[in-house]
């Protein structure tokens, strides 16, 4: 039922798309009809082409995201727990946070070559900051009252982290991770601009080059649907952790 409600808007969009294409309101070259897109999609799926691209991109998204998480999460925790360190990192992190990763592609190639590393770096650059900033924010905003409980029991830093900060900050970390994973998907195009020969981002770029908007749209739909699905799975898993939060609050997808 919840799912059906969610399909309402996509359905309306599809209907508009269909009628618009049928009546030729918009240019069929740039926005091909749903029928044509569907046929192309069918072809790409049955021929296994889409799967090949998807698998490679999935790998990149997850590897890049995992890397970003491995960097951002500890850094967020450490800076949150040792606040005097923040001063040292603040400027440089703020700087990098604002720089468009696309602008750094030539430098990435110079330093990391044209292999997987450069591509992963682009994804890391995209997903690092939501994870890092939300984690740090969560730690900084962790309820002082609960932290004092740990302090009064003489908890060492790592125990304060493990038993108080982590569970208390978990919802923030989660939000950061969800945002970060979303940005990993979004960074696919930027990443696969770098000498890729496969991947959904490459497929879209290549389709643009070859003036195949139908393939582009299949690519966009694939990323959107796949990303949403994975986020849902991710959320279902994490939902389990958050049962303690006042019941109703975890009912909805963005909880």
């Amino acid at each position: 039922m919840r799912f059906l409600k969610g399909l309402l808007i996509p359905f309306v969009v599809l209907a508009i798309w269909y009628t618009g294409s049928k009546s030729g309101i918009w240019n069929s070259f740039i926005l091909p009809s749903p029928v044509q897109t569907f046929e192309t999609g069918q072809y790409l799926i049955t021929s296994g082409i889409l799967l090949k691209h998807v698998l490679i991109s999935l790998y990149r998204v997850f590897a890049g995201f995992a890397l970003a998480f491995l960097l951002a999460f500890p850094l967020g925790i450490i800076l949150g727990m040792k606040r005097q360190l923040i001063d040292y990192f603040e400027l440089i992190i703020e700087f990098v946070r604002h720089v468009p990763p696309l602008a750094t592609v030539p430098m990435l190639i110079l330093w990391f070559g044209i292999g997987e590393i450069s591509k992963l770096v682009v994804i890391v650059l995209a997903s690092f900051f939501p994870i890092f900033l939300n984690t740090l924010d969560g730690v900084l905003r962790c309820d002082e009252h609960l932290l004092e409980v740990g302090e009064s029991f003489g908890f060492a830093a790592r125990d304060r982290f493990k038993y108080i900060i982590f569970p208390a900050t978990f919802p923030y970390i989660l939000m950061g991770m969800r945002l970060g994973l979303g940005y990993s998907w979004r960074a696919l195009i930027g990443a696969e601009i770098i000498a890729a020969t496969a991947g959904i981002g490459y497929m879209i770029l290549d389709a643009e080059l070859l003036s195949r908007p139908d393939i582009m749209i299949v690519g966009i739909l694939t990323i959107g649907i796949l990303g949403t699905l994975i986020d849902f799975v991710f959320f279902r898993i994490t939902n389990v952790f958050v049962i303690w939060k006042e019941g109703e609050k975890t009912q909805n997808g963005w909880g």
Partner: protein
Amino acid sequence: QKSSKTSDNNPATDKSSKLSAINITYVKSPLNVPSIVEKQKGIVEKEFAKEGLQINYPEITSGAKQTEALAAGSVDICNAVGGTSCILAASNGVDLKIISMYSRAPKAFMIITKSPNIKTIADLKGKKVAGPKGTVLHQMLLTALVKNNIKPEDVEHVAMEQPAAVAALINGSVDAVLAAGGSAEQAIKAGGRVLINGEGLVDGASVVAVSGKFLKEHPDFVKRFKQVHLASLQFIKDNPEEAYKMGAEQLGITVDEVKRMYSWYDFDPTIKPSDIQELKNTQDFLINTKMQTKTINIEDLIAEVK
């Protein structure tokens, strides 16, 4: 005055009087001096000042994006767009007409390597070559390989844009790059060596394209635009130093460099039979490499407004 007359008589060109703004893509690199002169000197503006026509120069460099914008109606004239992009777009249903040639410059397109072991095209076997896919450069590579009896599969073509490709060459990630203009200069300055250029392989043609609809509705405008373009070429001929200087400023290189490279370019707008043949070759290349699926009639693509 002539144009206003036709528009009075011909209902098809009725809208030409209503034209208020024209979008002409502005592509300055690799060395599009005519475009630079046209824009800097406001030659087109002057011609259409009487009608109060506003001329915009959106900078869309990528061929694919130019044809997209043309299809979307955001751009009226693609001034300097690669033949490949036009053929691909047209074969996928974009209503597009080539109204004249923009340039041919086989010498401007090069394969550059840093590796001392690569002395001839034959040495590329088993190597990595980076460069933009589905372009003149790509066509040049494949033509050269075929000419040297190397199977295209034996060379790994890494699809990337030119600046990125040059970075990859410098970094040693690839063995050779396909480059033109500034990127080629960059590669050479960084220790690269020109293996071959496009001479005898490709013409390296870029063209001027408009949408079929626009052509039908404003044939007059197209005609006059072509004349203006000829005037710009004439201006360059008459004032080469000034033109080179403008080019150097806009491209961020020295006047000498402009001068040297300018000699590689043929900006004659006339569509010659050889140009048509070249476009056909390009289509063959696209079909052979499976980038294009539907063959089109090249002649239909050309609409010379005389």
